[in-house]
């Protein structure tokens, strides 16, 4: 499905037959529905950022902005875009397109530090060389630490040049090359203001489910927080059902996809990892030890951020 068709649907430029058929397609296909939501968001962005032509703007206002719910969407988008541009500079620093000059500017202090340390090394190296010439010493060895700024850290005379791979043999008259000294170490990433992370201590959440509850009025919700590690579903038996010695339970999504199966359960507590659940409707089918159906439980999962 092309985004353009969905965009035209929202702007009301498709024929009635095309619109009806598209609505059905979208309603029955979860992926297409998600695509339509993306296109819808982008349309709202474009409207709020004044990117529309005059005719598109008119179409949007007369054909899209027709319900309270859509008005709310525009309102939320406006808040979202407005707040995003007001985020701390630390987050936005890395957002700017990477240009050479900008990176030079951003890392100015870093380069300055390297340049100064390089200069210091040159001076020290020069003094040392003069001293060495005077002493008529045979060799100097410059050791470089590959993980730090490539500045000569230790300058010393050695008896055996091959004792260490990191030791480079040089001539007594040679000074460290500026190109080696000034070459900056890999630029460290600019870090944002530290954020106090929420505690991720794993927790077990227990929810009690009552049989049925397919309807909106009595819908059962399960809210899963990010720290929830495991979930226990405690199933309540229907009133007139006598207890069985063991139970079988199957958890499925509303679309029929199997999530988990439990057999020969002695209690009506189903424990499973929280990551098995996403924001969907789930059904639990409970049966007795001889496979007769006992009850069905429906609940909607709401994963909290």
């Amino acid at each position, binding site marked *: 499905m092309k985004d353009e068709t969905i965009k035209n649907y929202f702007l009301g430029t498709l024929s009635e037959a095309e619109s009806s058929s598209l609505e059905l397609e979208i*309603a029955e296909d979860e992926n297409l529905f998600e695509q339509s939501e993306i296109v819808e968001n982008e349309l709202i962005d474009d409207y709020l950022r004044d990117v529309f032509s005059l005719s598109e703007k008119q179409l949007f206002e007369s054909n899209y*902005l027709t*319900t309270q719910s859509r008005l709310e969407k525009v309102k*939320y988008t406006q808040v979202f875009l407005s*707040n995003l541009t007001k985020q701390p500079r630390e987050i936005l620093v890395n957002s700017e397109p990477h240009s050479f000059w900008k990176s030079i500017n951003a890392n100015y202090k870093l380069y300055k530090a390297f340049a100064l340390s390089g200069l210091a090394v040159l001076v020290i190296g020069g003094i040392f060389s003069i001293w060495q010439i005077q002493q008529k010493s045979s060799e100097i060895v410059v050791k470089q630490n590959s993980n730090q700024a490539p500045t000569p850290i230790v300058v010393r005379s050695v008896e055996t040049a091959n004792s260490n791979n990191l030791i480079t043999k040089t001539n007594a008259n040679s000074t460290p090359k500026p190109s080696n000294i000034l070459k900056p170490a890999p630029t460290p990433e600019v870090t944002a203001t530290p*954020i106090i992370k929420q505690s991720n201590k794993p927790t077990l959440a227990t929810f009690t489910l009552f049989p049925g509850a397919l*309807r909106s009025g009595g819908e059962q919700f399960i809210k899963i927080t990010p720290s929830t590690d495991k979930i226990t579903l405690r199933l309540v038996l229907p009133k007139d059902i006598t207890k069985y010695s063991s139970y079988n339970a199957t958890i499925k999504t*509303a679309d029929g996809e199997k999530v988990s199966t439990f057999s020969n359960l002695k209690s009506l507590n189903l424990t499973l990892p929280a990551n098995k659940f996403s924001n969907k409707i789930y059904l639990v089918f409970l049966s007795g030890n001889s496979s007769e*159906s006992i009850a069905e439980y429906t609940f909607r999962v709401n994963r909290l*951020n």
Partner: protein
Amino acid sequence: MSERVSNEKINELLKALSPEGEEAATAYTKLQNSLVRFFQIKGDFDSLEAADLALDRVALKISQETKIDDLTKYAFGVARLIFFERLRQVEKERKAADGFYANKIAEYKVKDEDSDIFRLHRECFESLEIAEKKLLADYFLDLPYPKQNENRIQLSAKHSISMVNLRLKVFRLRKRLEECLRSKLN
């Protein structure tokens, strides 16, 4: 909200969907989800309630022993009618149809940015991971229109994902923020 139909009538609908209990429940929920999506794309505020209303009417029709060849198609027909009924109801309350909501947008545009909604949204934003915040900031960088597209292409290359997946990732983050904001507002 209109009165709900009885459980007996809902059971008849379930039987019409499938004689097998488990299959019927699955089919019911699947149809309910599709109807919810239908109302969402139409821009209905309470899509779940509207979907249940449509299912109630279908159940009522079945209880009157009316033969329905294609239940899904019929349910969507009913849903369409319900949407227009609800829309008409809203329009009755509107003084002028055209530009009504557009004028409302203008009101939001001048809203005080220190108001609760902005503050609550900022709280939701703070709950995101730093990488997620950076992704949103990168994606919605305020650039002129053609440059914004170029920026997003570069961003997809930087993250080594396709543009389709990048859009999806950003959309899901936005949705999380919207859900967070809604829950804080309610």
